[in-house]
């Protein structure tokens, strides 16, 4: 019958043997698998699905009668939705303590920029037929185009500085401050949408509310981060 003294002796012998020579591994330890390795490819594929659907419908002649207006709306909405999804990532991490949203934040932002570019190019090409004078006069005269153009322009530095290399070059603090512009772009996008609709403002109001909620969460987080630690504790730590 093994006594605890025997167990102790066994342990001591084992330890000496380990230190002398490492125990040969009988089988390769399974590679530590990345549980979320499928996530980024999935999000990327999902964000190009609408483009594929559009191209298929175009080929089948199924686009709206006013195809220019339909395509403009399509790309614009996709840009706004993806930007809002990107802005949901960090609050999701705060609230649910998940880390996977942060992995797709950059991808979502870049896909938003991709569709914003397509939206802008459609306007320049199809609506204005590359008439630069027309475009500039539109931007200055029409509030909603100025707002939209500004939102697009704000996304450009964000896209350029989206890489890890850029984070290092700018430094985390400066990069974070710059990327707060994503919220400004989002707000301008909603205003652009709001000014564009003829009379039924339901949709822009819905998107605006979601954006306001995300912005509210961010402001709330900032406020509670600023409060001193002692106040944040609600229950006293037991001192046993």
């Amino acid at each position, binding site marked *: 019958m093994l006594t605890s003294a025997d167990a102790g002796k066994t342990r001591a012998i084992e330890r000496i043997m380990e230190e002398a020579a490492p125990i040969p591994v009988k*089988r390769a330890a399974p590679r530590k698998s990345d549980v979320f390795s499928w996530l980024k490819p999935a999000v990327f594929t*999902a964000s190009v699905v*609408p483009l594929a659907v559009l191209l298929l*419908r175009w080929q089948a002649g199924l686009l709206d*009668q*006013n195809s220019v207006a339909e395509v403009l709306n399509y790309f614009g*909405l996709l840009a706004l939705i993806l930007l809002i999804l990107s802005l949901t990532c960090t609050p999701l991490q705060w609230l649910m303590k998940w880390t996977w949203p942060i992995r797709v934040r950059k991808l979502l932002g870049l896909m938003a920029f991709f569709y914003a570019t397509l939206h802008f190019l459609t306007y320049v090409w199809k609506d204005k037929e590359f008439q630069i004078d027309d475009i500039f006069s539109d931007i200055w005269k029409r509030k*909603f185009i100025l707002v939209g153009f500004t939102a697009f322009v704000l996304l450009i530095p964000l896209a350029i500085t989206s890489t890890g290399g850029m984070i290092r070059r700018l430094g985390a603090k400066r990069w974070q401050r710059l990327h707060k512009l994503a919220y400004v772009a989002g707000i301008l996008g909603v205003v652009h949408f709001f*000014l564009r609709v003829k009379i039924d403002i339901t949709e822009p109001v819905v998107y605006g509310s979601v954006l306001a909620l995300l912005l509210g969460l961010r402001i709330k987080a900032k406020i509670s981060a600023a409060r001193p630690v002692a106040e944040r504790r609600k229950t006293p730590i037991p001192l046993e």
Partner: protein
Amino acid sequence: MSLKPPNEPSSEITPENTYLNRADFLKKMALFTGTATLLGGGLTWLSTRGRFRQASAGADMQPALVVDEAIAPNTKYDTDEPKTSFEGITTYNNFYEFGTNKTDPAANAHTLKPRPWTVSIEGEVAKPQLVDIDTLTKWFPLEERVYRMRCVEAWSMVIPWLGFPLSKLIERMEPTSKAKYVAFTTLLDPVRMPIQKSSRSLPWPYVEGLRLDEAMHPLTMLAVGLYGKSLPNQNGAPLRLVVPWKYGFKGIKSIVKIRLTETLPPTSWNVAGPDEYGFFANVNPKVDHPRWSQAAEQRIGEGSRRPTLMFNGYAEHVAALYKGMDLSAFY
């Protein structure tokens, strides 16, 4: 009793490592496919707002107009630009009583029952009366006219309308000397027009109006059909107004009341957006909508845009009506 596994050589046994990796891989493929499909589908739905263009029922499905006399084309005012297809005209509509998307009226206007239908003619006339639409249609010989139609949203069509000049109806009603304007009202019936239960887009019923000289102009017509068939519901069955030199929202649909008045009548879009939509609403490339330019338009069915014409190309016929009027003040 042996619990030994079947006689497989041990080299055939999948290494545990690979087995675990394969299972893991399959699981990840499933997650990838599921997420890509759901998220992709969701994005597509949100950006199309769940609307896709419906196939039109087709011109053959639309009942032909029953008339006593043959329909004669009146080519005096016709445009020779290519006509917009029947499909285009009947599946791209603004008729907010059936929804605010362009594809909604074609999808939803089946609830409109254009018979029985009575039109009330009232106000400053010697002979106010209620008349059944089929009776009214027989009062005047019908003509086919091919008109341009320009929407305030900067798209346009060419439509072969079937109808008669509004002037003939007004003359028959014998307006009094006090009549200065003609006011029109659309059906108000939340059963046949369910969206009228809410007023998220426009106040109901839809109303429009013309100055008497505009109403008496030979170009102005009341339409009962298009492409030789009776008006589809989504185009304003059974009776609608056509004023080709004005923005399309002046073309009030599904008329139940025509009233001659002394004072300027309210018009729905002017009530909803007085800074953006005026009473006159003459097509004018030099007077922009506050939020977008009116200098160009998208002809439905064409790829590129075209410049908008003054009074939608009918300037030689109607410019005289507005001589001396500041068109940017009276938009």
